[in-house]
């Protein structure tokens, strides 16, 4: 059963909240055909069926090797039909980090209802929460989620954010209430918008994919699999101070852990929803068949710039900040990247083609068979350690290229195959 079916049934058991698959929400009605691109300066196209998503904000814990559980604030997906009282009873204190990946479609209205469940660990703290869709073009300010210029959601209250996304690409979302604190505490996730061009095989040069990063018109951003990976840091003194009712001076910021989707290596390669990581359901493992075109949807909601590499496999940046790398005059401004710099609040869409399986390289084996391993990692090797512990850790994950083509088609972004 897929996660969206569970949500529809309203039968989301607590143990399944950590599932880690992308949250697709519930669609109203049926999908219609593609919506044509629009003329700038005019009102945009009438949207397709709406997507409705329910999120809750609360606190919880995540696991990092070598230390006590880390106190976090976070979002999690909840059943839309539940009352606030039912949500509070079922989910308060069960935050996850990173937040669920939100999978939305161009010109399809999105309603995201946020419920603030309050904090189990800090009953004295009565912070509101918001959702800020970082990078959304021309929102009504009331839906921009900045509490000083619009509204925020106090404890045991709900608010529905409304978006009509017109611009495909990879974005991020986070709480903007006391944002220097709430973002570091873990209220961060990726949201992406599929282009109207999706569904067409005619554009794919290989005539096999119906999915594209952008409305490229020429299939240059066709992909077979995609993966949403959020870069973050953990400053444990801030988390510990919050847990212990202390103030942290944010200009002292100097993190000890560097994460992908809220996990450090080797946690990053555990599958989605792994039982050892109930608060960190989202894997960063990249599993591909040889020849697959993989799209990495990357965003950075840490406070530091990161230099990411994928040694052995060339990366091509086709999008930045939810914008196809193409100039107004139509020039292709995509570029190859050996080392990809990505600053805080920035997003990149990166394509790579999985190389052939190489039996003479190092071969490992999992339930799907034999594979070669490539490492998607930070070049700054200080960030490849978990608080100075020996061995590889931190901001790294594996790209596994299998012998043969054992992996079925991806049914959800970042799907992992045990």
């Amino acid at each position, binding site marked *: 059963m897929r996660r969206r079916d569970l949500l529809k049934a309203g039968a989301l058991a607590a143990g399944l909240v950590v599932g880690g698959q992308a949250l697709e929400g519930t669609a109203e009605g049926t999908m219609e055909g593609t919506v044509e691109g629009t003329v700038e300066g005019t009102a945009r196209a009438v949207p397709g069926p709406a997507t409705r998503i329910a999120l809750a904000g609360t606190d919880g814990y995540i696991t990092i090797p070598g230390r006590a559980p880390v106190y976090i604030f976070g979002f999690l997906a909840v059943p839309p039909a539940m009352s606030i009282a039912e949500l509070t009873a079922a989910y308060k204190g069960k935050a996850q980090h990173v937040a669920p990946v939100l999978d939305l479609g161009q010109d399809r209205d999105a309603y995201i209802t946020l419920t603030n469940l309050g904090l189990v660990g800090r009953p004295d703290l009565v912070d509101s929460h918001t959702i800020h869709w970082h990078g959304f*073009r021309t929102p009504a300010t009331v839906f921009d989620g900045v509490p*000083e*210029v619009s509204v925020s959601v106090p404890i045991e209250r709900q608010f529905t954010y409304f978006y009509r996304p017109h611009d495909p690409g990879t974005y991020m979302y986070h709480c903007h209430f006391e944002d220097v604190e709430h973002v570091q505490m873990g209220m961060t996730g990726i949201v992406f918008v599929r282009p109207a061009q999706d569904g067409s095989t005619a554009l794919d040069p290989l005539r096999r994919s119906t999915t594209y990063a952008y409305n490229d018109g020429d299939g240059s951003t066709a992909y077979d699999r995609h993966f949403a990976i959020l870069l973050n840091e953990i400053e444990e003194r801030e988390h510990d101070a919050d847990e212990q009712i202390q103030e942290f001076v944010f200009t002292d910021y100097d993190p000890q852990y560097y994460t992908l989707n809220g996990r450090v290596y080797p946690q990053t390669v555990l599958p989605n929803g792994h039982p050892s990581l109930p608060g960190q359901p989202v894997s960063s493992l990249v599993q591909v068949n040889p020849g697959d075109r993989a799209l990495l949807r990357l965003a950075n909601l840490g406070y530091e710039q990161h230099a990411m590499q994928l040694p052995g496999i060339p990366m091509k940046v086709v999008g930045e900040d939810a914008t196809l790398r193409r100039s*107004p005059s139509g020039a292709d401004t995509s570029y190859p990247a050996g080392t990809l710099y990505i600053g805080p609040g920035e997003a990149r869409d990166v394509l790579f083609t999985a190389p052939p399986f190489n039996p003479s390289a190092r071969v490992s084996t999992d339930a799907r068979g034999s594979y070669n391993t490539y490492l998607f990692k930070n070049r700054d090797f200080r960030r490849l350690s978990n608080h100075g512990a020996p061995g590889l850790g931190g901001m790294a994950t594996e790209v596994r290229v299998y012998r043969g083509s054992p992996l079925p088609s991806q049914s959800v972004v970042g799907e992992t195959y045990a």
Partner: protein
Amino acid sequence: MRKLIALVGAMVVAMALVPLPAPVARAQAAAPKQGLVCTGGPSFDLTARSGYIETPDGNSVLMWSYAPAQGGFQSPGPVLCVEQGDEVTVRLHNDLAEPVSIVFPGQLAVGGTGAPGLLAKEAPAGGDATYTFTAGRPGTYVYESGSDPSKQVEMGLYGALVVRPAGHPDYAYDAATRFDPKREYLMLLSDIDPDLHHAVETGGTYDFTTLRNRYFAINGRQFPDTLQNNGVSWLPAQPYGALVRVKSYDATGNPLPALIRMANVGALNHPFHPHGNHVRQIAQDGRPLRTPDGGDATGEHFGRTVASGQTQDFLFTWKDQDSWDSQGNPLPASVASPDYRNLTFKDGDTWSSGSAYLGAKGTLPVGTASQNVCGEWYFPWHSHALNEFTNFDAGFGGMATLLRVDPPGGCAAVAASSSILAGTPRSGTVAALATADTAYYQVDSTATGTPAADWSGGFAGVPTGATGLTVTYTGRNSAAALPTTLWAWKWSTGAWVQLGAAADVGTADATITRTLPAPQTDFLGTGANQGKVRVRVLTTGTATGFLTQGNLLRLTYDAP
């Protein structure tokens, strides 16, 4: 966690610590309230000296700066504006106790006089140096100290240099980068470790490997001081604001983008995030972005890291994609009117209008103070290294400003009251004048002498400092081509002033638009009549009496 801080109180304390009420710098004499403040050249006189800046958390920090020679201390140094090809001369006098200099990255063959220095001619303590160069290619550049830079640049010896294309003050580079000169903005990013400044102030020592910045500034101010106008009296040493103001794109009324010049004189790279809409990067380090074959390589971004020492230029257009409008294109009913009883306006103080629509005002909860003028929108623009979005330890400060999006036609007010000066009311209330629709405010003319329908509408809540006051009247009469005049009440003389010539208004709705004559402040009430504007509609006519039907009476203005 709540980190409330009494900003106003803190500001008063900080000001008390700063004894010098600096005279207004020459650069500020004709400064616009918002946006880039240019100091024109091509000759400049600067004095390296020290002074204090104030931070929003109540601290004051010793800075060094290149101050205008005829003015008081200011940080950062003045924005030097020249044209490509100008023969530029910068004379530097040094009031500091150690040699200083200026380097101009991006400018070639800088000559001059002064003591020999490693990177540039130096002005010794109490002495002088001169720099001469031919202004090179257009763009945004920085100037900064070339002497002991780790100390002197961190202490504040920096500023921005703007080179404009000759003869084209409205081009950043070329015709493709034409912008609205009224909407040109500079964001000079800097960072401050107060420990260094304290060490300099007290003659102590400082180890640069321990650099830890606590204050992060745009144009020398930290949020929320960045929102204040240029040259406000309570920030005497920090004359440059950073509020960005735009209006919605309009192909005829507002076709040109704003220009955002960013320059980073700090030690760190700063990832800057504009909320609300993407910015289009057009240049870096004073060079337009081009493909290898010379094509356009500009691109849109919602976040861009401006590296230490780097400049980047952006064009910015607010193009409302959906143009949500309560009348013609409403938001879905389920989300258009949030129930504020279930929500919080943080700290009971907001920039929100209370409405989901641009240009409209809603009803805010009792006890919530609003900074909103007339339904404009605000979005923060800030460093997304969020530890820089703070003032030392207090969030929502530091390297941040706001984008203000004004309603497309400016602020609009509708008449709140009406009064009949001559004639008799037939039907309709002042509410009928709010929109051009099927509801009319109807006045029967007098029947004796020359018949006249003479009435007025009163507007309230017009903010002090409003400009561009313009009246729009739409109405019709029961007879053809009746001469109609608009008038405005001049509070200073207690008399009506006619606005332009009479226009004929017949039996179909006609619209008259009149701009109030200068000085418009004469027409804006003060004291007990604070914020009030009165507009009179006088129709005279025919031998037999007539009926005047007013449909719309609106006042539009640009808010301060």
